[in-house]
């Protein structure tokens, strides 16, 4: 009977198309919005991805990675003296204004790294060498930032175009010159501004007047010491807060700075509510369109279901027929919707805006919700058919 149930469904192409549109749109909305949401949320802990160290140490009051509370430089020595520390390097992060050649100002994220070890340096340089940061007044700018900080020029076709900064270009931070010696590739951040890397000491110079400039300390454990163990020791010996660099937000590790950052934004901003509303909207639209269409499909076939009942099909068989029809439509609708979401995601990833991260969990959750929509649709149909009197087939 299930084969016939499917043939009944596929035989009504107009209804099937409408049903699939509703389910696919719903799946698309839920998967796409969730992926953009997790994309944006993944930007919140971008420093953890761009700056790689096994253990991060911060002021005890720090709640998330974008909220650096400056430490004293002497704290670095205290951390280095903790048993199990292989090395510890300073890290400065701050938002400062950069004055461009054309007089324009841009807000940048200044990252100061240790000039000796280059701990925290960007992993991928598309131009230049990291060692060039040891030259006077030098900085490395990220690819996207170079474009953002670029200037408008007139192209060969006479049209205005943005010319990205390149190696050799200069700008000023607090009236101090910054000369670009490299272009790097890093992940973009929630806080926006271009990443400008320099040495820790030079960063101190760029942030004139700040008494404390040590934002974080990047620490490497000795062999045989786990990051979690070292965090415990650092906190016990120094009273500072130590974090692991684990960026798996689904984990339960309370020491993960990325995970804490993720949940800080979850609870302290309206982002989850905004995207949650869009996902719920997708769910409700799916239920409304698919439920209505499937119900109308059942209504159109009601007299045939009544005839099948009269011929001796129990409600169990009919219910299973309706479930097969609804779940098959759900499966196809999900495939179409998730496929479209992936396609849109690819375009987004290529363009870099907005961020798009489609975790397998998003697909599973969307799949479950689409099946839920199918279940509700089938249930509405089953209730309707169950109320039809088999004797009604004799009434012409």
């Amino acid at each position: 009977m299930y084969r016939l149930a499917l043939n009944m469904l596929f035989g009504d192409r107009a209804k099937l198309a409408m049903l699939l549109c509703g389910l696919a749109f719903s799946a698309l909305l839920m998967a796409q919005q969730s992926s953009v949401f997790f994309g944006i949320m993944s930007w919140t802990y971008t420093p953890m991805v761009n700056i790689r160290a096994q253990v991060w140490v911060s002021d005890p009051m720090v709640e998330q990675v974008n909220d650096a509370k400056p430490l004293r430089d002497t704290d670095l020595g205290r951390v280095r003296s903790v048993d199990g520390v292989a090395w510890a390097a300073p890290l400065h992060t701050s938002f400062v204004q950069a004055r461009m050649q054309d007089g324009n100002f841009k807000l940048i994220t200044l990252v100061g790294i240790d000039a000796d070890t280059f701990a925290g340096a960007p992993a991928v340089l598309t131009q230049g060498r990291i060692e060039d940061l040891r030259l006077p007044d030098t900085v490395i700018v990220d690819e996207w930032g170079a474009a953002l900080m670029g200037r408008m020029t007139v192209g060969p076709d006479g049209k205005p175009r943005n010319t990205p900064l390149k190696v050799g270009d200069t700008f000023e931070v607090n009236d101090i010159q910054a000369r670009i010696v490299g272009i790097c590739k890093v992940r973009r951040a929630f806080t926006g501004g271009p990443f400008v890397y320099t040495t820790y000491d030079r960063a101190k110079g760029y942030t004139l007047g700040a008494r404390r400039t040590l934002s974080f300390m990047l620490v490497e454990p000795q062999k045989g010491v786990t990051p979690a163990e070292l965090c415990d020791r650092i906190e016990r010996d120094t009273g500072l807060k130590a974090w692991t660099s684990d960026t798996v937000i689904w984990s339960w590790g309370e020491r993960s700075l990325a995970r804490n950052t993720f949940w800080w934004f979850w609870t302290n901003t309206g982002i989850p509510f905004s995207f949650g509303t869009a996902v719920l909207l997708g769910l409700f639209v799916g239920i409304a369109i698919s439920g209505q269409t499937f119900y109308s499909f059942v209504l159109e076939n009601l007299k045939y279901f009544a005839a099948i009942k009269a011929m001796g099909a129990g409600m169990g068989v009919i219910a299973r027929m309706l479930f097969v029809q609804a779940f098959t439509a759900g499966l196809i609708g999900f495939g179409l919707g998730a496929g479209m979401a992936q396609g849109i995601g690819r375009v987004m990833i290529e363009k870099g805006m907005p961020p798009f991260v489609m975790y397998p969990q998003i697909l599973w959750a969307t799949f479950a919700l689409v099946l839920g929509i199918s279940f509700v649709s089938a249930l509405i149909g089953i209730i309707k058919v169950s109320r039809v009197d088999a004797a009604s087939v004799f009434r012409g």
Partner: protein
Amino acid sequence: MSHLAHTVAVRASGVDMFFGTPENQVVALQQADFEARRGELIMLVGPSGCGKTTLLSVIAGTLTPQAGTVEVFGQRLDGLGQEELTAFRRKHLGFVFQSFNLIPTLTVMENVMVPLLIQGRPYDEAHARSLAIIDKVGLKGREEGRPNALSGGQQQRVAIARALVHEPPLLICDEPTSALDKDTGGHIMQLVRDLSRSPERCVVVVTHDHRIFRFADRIAEMEDGRISRVVDDPKLLDTTHL
């Protein structure tokens, strides 16, 4: 057990059936008695509203009477639950409906297969048996077509094939020729008679169509919710009020 008991296919005794509320009650059947024998084609005739369809529904087990007993091939229906009635219909009954009730999105073959698939028969077996009966009703070569592409007579042939494919002992036909012209109606009834003729099978036909009375072995006339008389010869009926 008497010889008569062996020959009785359907027996309804003292059947009452009311619809509506106690204050606004419509009497459909009142102390109705009906009997159909194995091997015969019996027609239920009577004016509109006399209770023919209700009696047919009671015999088919799709309606449960408020009073009286109904026995079909020795099985009392009045004591059965819904699931047992459904199972009984599945095994013992075949239906030909007034408006055919062929599922338009399925092919002729798939429509005919429905009763066998409901019985849980394997798809291949259902296919083979359906093919054979489609051939018998003269629609060979139209198996993969949709019912809507067929004429009314051809659609009713498909319905007959569907009703008989699982070889039920009781065939219920509700106004099988009302949607057909005279010649087609005659052909359809001839087909019903030819295909369903079996010493063990009983065919009950509800009809208004006096043009097909000649196909009946007996005719039971209904009036005001009960059988008023049963005749062997259609000429004995006054058809002016039908």
